[in-house]
Each structure stands twice: as C-alpha cells, then as structure tokens.
C-alpha cells in the first residue's frame, strides 16, 4: 500500500482551515448513531473521549489503571508550549512551527507541525476555562517560562505539576461526560486485540483486570491514545504500567509502525542507584533555566566534594559547547554531551554515571526563596530519592529514556494505515520528528484530542454513511480475536519455567540500552538483532507466570506486555540499523561530524520509515513516506 499522508494542498498557513472546510460533517442528530472506542485516558485519550462525547458520539473509554485520572501524562512536570506571545518576546505560530521542525531535526511533517502550532493557542484557552490553575503574575495574567530548544518564553506551567493539572482538566471534562451518560468508562481494563472486519477497525477485545473476563467491544472507529514504548528499555521515566501492547497488536493487524528508532533520552534524570531500580525519575528540564550543568575538568577531581572544586576547574560543558543556548540546548544534544563527559571518565557519583546540575549561582542571584518557589517540589522529590539536599549540594543527573517519537503511522487526519483506526498523542509518530522539544508532548496530546481528531473522525464516519452496517461483537472476527487472547494467556500461564518476567524484561532492556540507546552502531545493532530472538525464544520456554487467568493477576498482565516488548525490541533495532544517518534521538556513531554532532543524510533518509507486519517468521516490509519541505530550508541543526 502506498503511504498517502493526505496533506492538504495550499499555503501552509491555510492548510488546516481549508481542510476543516473540506472535511465532511455528520449532522448532530446522526452523531449518536456512531460508536467510538477510545483506548487510553491520558491527555490525548481523555480529551478525545470527552470532546467526542460532547459532540454527541457514543463513546466507550478504556484504561488499565484504576481510574482515568492516573494515566502517565500526569507525571509531566515542566509545562506546555503555546504560541500566545504574551511576553511580547517575538513568538508566533510560525516561530513555534519552525522551532519544532528544527528541534525534530527535519524529520517531521511540516503540515502537521504547523497545525500543532496553530491550535496550541486554543489549548491554553480551553484549559484556563476548565479551571487549570496555571501560574500567574501578580497582575492576574498568565506567566510563562522558557524551555529547551527555544529562545522565547512560551511555556505555560502549573508549578512542577503541569501534566497533572492538564490531565485533571481533561479527566474532569471526561468525568462530566461519564456522569451525563455519554461515555461508558472501563477502568482496570486492558485492550489485548484489535478487531478488523473487511479492512476496517471495528472493535477491540479486552481483559477485565479484576475478574480476568475476556470480552469484545464493537465500534465504528477505534482510537488509540495508549502512550509510548519507552519501557522497552526496562528502565525509563515512564510509569511501570506503560507498554506498547495496544499499538503493537494493532501493528500485527495491519497498522504500520513508524520511526521506532526515534527514542528520546532526557538529560536530567536521577542516576540509577542499583540493580533493584524499577524506574527512573525525571527532574524537569525547567531546572535547566536556573541550574548549570558541569563536570570536573580533571578526572582526579571526580571523587571530591563539589564545593571544593574551584570554578576554574569546572567544565560547564553545555555553556562551553553551545554558547547561545547554553544549559537550554535541546534534549538529545544535552544528553549526548553528558554521556561524552562520563565516557571521558569525568562523570560524578556512583559508577561515574552522573553530571552536576548546580543551583549555587541561581541561589546567589535570586535568593533561596525564589528558587524554592520555582522548583520546591522537584528539590523535595530529589531529596526523597537520593537523601541529598540540592539547595546545599548540586544535584547529580544522568540521561534516561523518557519519550518515544516513533509510533503508529498516521496520516494528516490521525488515521493509521488501517481505516477506522485512529492514533493520538505519544502513541502516534506524527509531530516531533526525530526529537521532541520540551513542553511539546502535552501540547501534542491535547491538540490531537481536543482540536484535531474530533474534526477528522467525522469525515471518516460521513464516508461510512448513516446507514452503514453496524459491527456487532458476535461477528466471527471477534470470536477469533477472543480465542487468540485466551490462548496467548493460557500459553503464558502454562510454561511454568524458572525465570521471572522481570528478569527477562531487565535483560531485554539492558541489551537495548547498550546497543540501541543513546548511541548506536551497525555492529551493536546486528548483535542485538541476533540476541533478541534468542531471548524471546527463552522467554517462551522458561518464563514463570504464576496464578490463573480468572483473577486479578498482575504477573500475567506484565507477562503479556513483556512478550510484546520482546517482539517490538527487534523492530526498534531493525529500524535503527536501516537508518544510516544520525538525526535527533537516533545517533549512529558511524555518522557524525568531526566535532561529534549528528550527521543527517537528507539525500537518502528524508522520509518517514513505516513498517508493515508480514507474519511471525517474516521480516517486516518498509514503506517510505517522503518528507517534503516547502516552508523551512533543511539545514544542519545548530545550537551553538
């Protein structure tokens, strides 16, 4: 199948308006004749479910957590970008668009990104109207701060809990619709299969995580807002439950998976403390507004107390290498710089895997109270985890897997390669190219859910027609899918091997972090591609999943997710191996400039790589969607 991105014609600033006019509408009385299934209740899923229900569609929403309020969007700390230009510092829709394209290392679709920048302003208005308590100035107006990859202050925030407040806004909108009877909510319910009938997505099969019951839900369209796949690395800043299962099982039913190798490593996370580590904790990038990143110039100083190292012996490496952006250089660049410093033997803390993030100057300049006002929750969190007081000693940070730019391939309408299957938020690949800028994930999730999907899904329904054949869960395809889920779970439970699910997950994650993490090369990726199938084979022979299907069984839930990671990890490496260039979050050591900066190959790799599943024993087929830059001149990204 050819990949048609369905980008509207015309000048970039008018594409979305024109497209909205061209989209067919469903009249208000007919909307209730369409059932929509929304999987996931994070920013994208909850905002989509609420908005679709407000419009009159009949919505069912599913999440694996015990409440839709707990989706991992809640953990986003720093803020949300919007081209409001309230500070009058030169921002505009075009500048946000340009920064996002450049930040994404020229691997995102121009039209999508422009639309994202356009609707960013509506998001802020929407959230304020919902009662999101954004930070304000004494005059009562909204406050902004700056973030990585930008030279304007366009980030709106609610202390260090912006994701929480935005998610609660969407959750409240969703709750209102649940209360009104317009959304049926299914918490503690996990999607385990996508059902496709005559080439269209028509429903899902789910497992009730309390009773173990497997059931089918039919709909006229399925929306996946199921987040990213960062947990394939085992250790990441994702929540424990985050997984690739929904988009992966959709991939196996025909929804292409795009750019899996674009994984974002966040520069400011708390370093690993030991083998028991279950997840990594992010310290918001906003800290880099006031914190200065450094390591000792001399290796022998690494063990010394940081306060005893004079300024002259410190290497403020981001300020040195990127003077115009300094400590606010984009995430991929900052992460690699930290890795280089540690690889050079100048890392600090246990194992030498850490760099300092120092607030001494900010405290001197602003006073401790001001720093406390801006970041107290982050400093508190740091102290809880490390037992250290960052007002007195510099924080130690190290990069960690944080966000995944890749995801289900979608067209301009957010529809995947499977008609009727829409993918929103982090789960799709669409707007961030090879690297996401800080405070843009919240923007994208809400843009998709509040302002894009509600328009585009109507066009699909209008195409189906009011008298379309209603799918029912008694269709043989549903029975087949239910059977597949039951037999997969039974198989997992019957192995009764010697190794725990965690031990397999940890081994897979370690392998991927080493071979397909911050830096990759051909030999390492080829090795990983040999080792992953072997590990997967062992998993299916030797994993020990306790308990039964017909009960609350967390071990079984986890085993299913890890089984999918075992397959997905291979696609991740395959994609990384095929992309013979470095761009954004994908850094191949063979492709770099003499100064160590990423070397893109626009001639050969200026495309979206979308993989099509061919069956369990066959390699997937790569489809290429060429990226055409009409507005922005592709240049070497420079933050110097």
């Amino acid at each position, binding site marked *: 199948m050819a990949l048609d991105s369905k980008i509207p014609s015309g000048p970039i600033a008018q594409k979305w308006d024109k497209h909205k006019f061209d989209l067919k509408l469903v009249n208000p009385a007919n909307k209730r004749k369409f059932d929509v299934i929304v999987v996931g209740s994070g920013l994208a899923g909850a*905002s989509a479910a609420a*908005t679709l229900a*407000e419009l009159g569609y009949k919505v069912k929403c599913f999440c694996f957590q*015990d*409440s*839709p*309020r*707990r989706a*991992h969007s*809640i*953990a986003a700390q720093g803020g949300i970008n919007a081209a409001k230009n309230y500070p009058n510092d030169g921002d505009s829709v075009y500048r946000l668009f340009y920064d996002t394209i450049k930040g994404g290392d020229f691997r995102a679709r121009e039209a999508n990104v422009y639309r994202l920048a356009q609707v960013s302003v*509506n998001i802020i*208005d*929407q*959230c*304020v*109207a*919902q*009662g999101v*308590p*954004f*930070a*304000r*100035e*004494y005059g*009562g107006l909204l406050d902004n701060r700056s973030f990585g990859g930008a030279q304007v202050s366009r980030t709106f925030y609610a202390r260090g809990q912006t*994701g*929480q407040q935005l998610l609660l806004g969407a*959750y*409240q*909108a969703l*709750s*209102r619709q*649940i*209360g009104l009877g317009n959304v049926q909510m299914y*918490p503690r319910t996990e999607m385990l299969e996508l059902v496709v009938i005559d080439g269209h997505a028509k429903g899902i099969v789910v497992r009730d995580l309390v009773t173990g019951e497997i059931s089918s839900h039919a709909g006229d369209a399925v929306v996946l807002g199921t987040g990213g796949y960062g947990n394939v690395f085992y250790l990441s800043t994702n*929540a*424990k439950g985050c997984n690739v299962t929904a988009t992966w099982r959709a991939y196996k039913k025909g929804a292409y998976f795009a750019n899996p190798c674009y994984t974002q490593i966040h520069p400011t996370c708390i370093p690993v*403390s*030991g083998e*028991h*580590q*279950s*997840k990594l*904790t*992010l310290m918001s990038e906003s800290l880099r507004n006031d914190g200065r990143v450094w390591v000792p110039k001399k290796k022998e100083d690494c063990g010394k107390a940081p306060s005893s190292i004079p300024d002259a012996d410190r290497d403020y490496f981001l300020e040195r290498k990127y003077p115009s952006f300094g400590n606010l250089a984009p995430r991929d660049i900052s992460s690699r710089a930290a890795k280089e410093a540690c690889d050079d033997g100048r890392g600090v803390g246990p194992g030498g895997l850490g760099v300092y993030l120092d607030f001494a100057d900010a405290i001197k300049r602003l006073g401790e109270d001001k720093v406390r006002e801006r970041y107290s929750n982050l400093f*508190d*969190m740091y102290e*809880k*985890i490390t*037992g250290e007081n960052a007002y007195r000693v510099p924080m130690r940070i190290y990069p960690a897997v944080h966000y995944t730019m890749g995801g289900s391939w979608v067209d301009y309408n957010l529809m995947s390669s499977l008609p009727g299957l829409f993918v929103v938020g982090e789960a799709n690949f669409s707007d961030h190219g090879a690297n996401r800028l800080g405070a843009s994930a919240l923007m994208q999730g809400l843009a998709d859910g509040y*302002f894009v999907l509600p328009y585009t899904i109507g066009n699909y329904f209008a195409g189906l027609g009011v008298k379309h054949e209603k799918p029912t869960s008694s269709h043989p395809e549903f029975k087949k899918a239910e059977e597949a889920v039951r037999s997969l779970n039974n198989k997992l439970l019957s192995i*009764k091997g*010697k190794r*725990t699910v965690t031990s397999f997950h940890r081994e897979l994650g370690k392998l991927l972090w080493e071979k397909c993490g911050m830096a990759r090369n051909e030999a390492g990726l080829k090795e990983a591609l040999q080792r992953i199938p072997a590990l997967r084979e062992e998993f299916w022979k030797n994993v*020990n999943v*306790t308990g039964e299907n017909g*009960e*609350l069984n967390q*071990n079984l839930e986890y085993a299913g997710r890890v089984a999918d990671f075992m397959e997905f990890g291979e696609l991740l490496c395959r994609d990384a191996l095929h992309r013979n260039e470095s761009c954004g979050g994908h850094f191949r050591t063979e492709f770099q400039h003499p100064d160590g900066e990423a070397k893109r190959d626009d001639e050969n790799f200026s495309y979206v790589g979308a993989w099509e599943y061919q069956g369990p024993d066959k390699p997937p087929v790569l489809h290429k969607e060429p990226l055409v830059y009409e507005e922005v001149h592709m240049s070497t990204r420079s933050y110097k």
Partner: protein
Amino acid sequence: MNLTLKVWRQSNANSTGRFETYEAKDVLPDMSFLEMLDVVNEGIIERGQEPIAFDSDCREGICGMCSLVINGIPHGGHRGTATCQLHMRHFEDGQTITIEPWRAKAFPLLKDLVVNRSSFDRIIQSGGFISVNTGGTPDGNAIPVPKTDSDLAMDAAACIGCGACVAACKNASAMLFVAAKVSHLNLLPQGKAEKDRRALNMVHQMDAEGFGNCTVTGSCEAVCPKEISLSFIAKMNRDYGTATLKGK
C-alpha cells in the same frame, strides 16, 4: 538490612484475609518501599507462589495509584510522601513492618493490598468539573485571576486522589478529597457559576458512597502525600452551607 514483613493477603473480596510473614533480605537503603516489595515478590515467584498484589504506576508520587498502610499509617508516615517515594533508608535493620490495604467501606478490597477507589471517580462525575465544552472559550488572559487565589486553587488541585485521607480517618471520611476539588474549582472565577450545585452534588455523592463524617481530627492532613490543608474542609463547609441556605 534484613526486615520481617507482615503482609495482608486476601484472594478476593469474598474470601477471608490473613497476615503472612515474609523475610526481606539484603534490603538496600536506596531502594524505594515498592522496589523492596518487588524484590520480595521476585523471591515469591521463584518459589512458585503467588506474588503480593499491590497497586503502583508512576512511582514518582503523582499518579496516586499506590497505597499501603505501613505500620498503621497510610503511605508510611513521612510528611508529604507517597509510598512509592518512601525509601528504605528510613527503616532499620531487623525491623518488622506490617503492610495493609486501605480499609474503608467505600473502598472495597479486590485482592491483597489492592482496593477499588472508583467511588472517588463517581464523586468527581457528580460535579467535580467546570461545565465547558471544547472550543469557543475566551482568551486565556481574558479573566485575570489574582495570584493568591490562583496559588490557593493550585494548593487544592495538587490532590492526587490516592485515598490516604480516607484510610487514615477513623470514620473513613472523604472530606479532604472532596474539599480539595470543591475548593480548587470554587476558588477560581471560572468555577463560580456552578459553585453551589458543585458543593451540594459532590457532598451528596460522597454520602451516597458510604464515606463517614468528618470530626476534624486532622489525621487526613497528616498523611496526605500532597499536604492538602484541612482549611479546605472549612471552605467546603462554608460553600455547602451557603448553597443549602440558598435552597439550591
């Protein structure tokens, strides 16, 4: 360090529960409490037994999924700390730790340490929102909000909906949770239009769910991982009282 754990085990809502004893060996001070339980569970699985079921997700103190009554105190009794952020450096070698689920009629137990908190969701569904549809909203700066009001609303909005307030209360009252949401929205100009019905509907739903009454002992505030202030309960009482007097 080595610890002895006494953990509440219960197969499902209908079965009888009991304490089981487990030894947690070689626990490191840098482990979080849940990581310590992960390690214990690994051992249990390796012995072919059923691991301890407990809820957690973000493990950075913000999603509100984790629970656990640790030595009689929800979230373990470290100020402003959820269980997932509690670290083992606060425990001593040889210590015995009891671990129980949230216990409240309105939080029925599902398994071991996992309870059903959907009563909280239903309270929000009854009025914990501002009735605004997507689109057509005024500019974000159209309504100035005094910083002090906005900051106070944010203090209330910080609630993570974990339910520790209920678990700590001798009456299993949900007043702190409900007051936090009522206050967050009622303090803001955007929330004023529905101020009265919000307070009435949410309080009525809270009662219907079977939560107990508030006798202002303050145990909720003491265990709240987000340190939500008891004064919001006073604010909610005032809003509820006003709404009742207006006969809404």
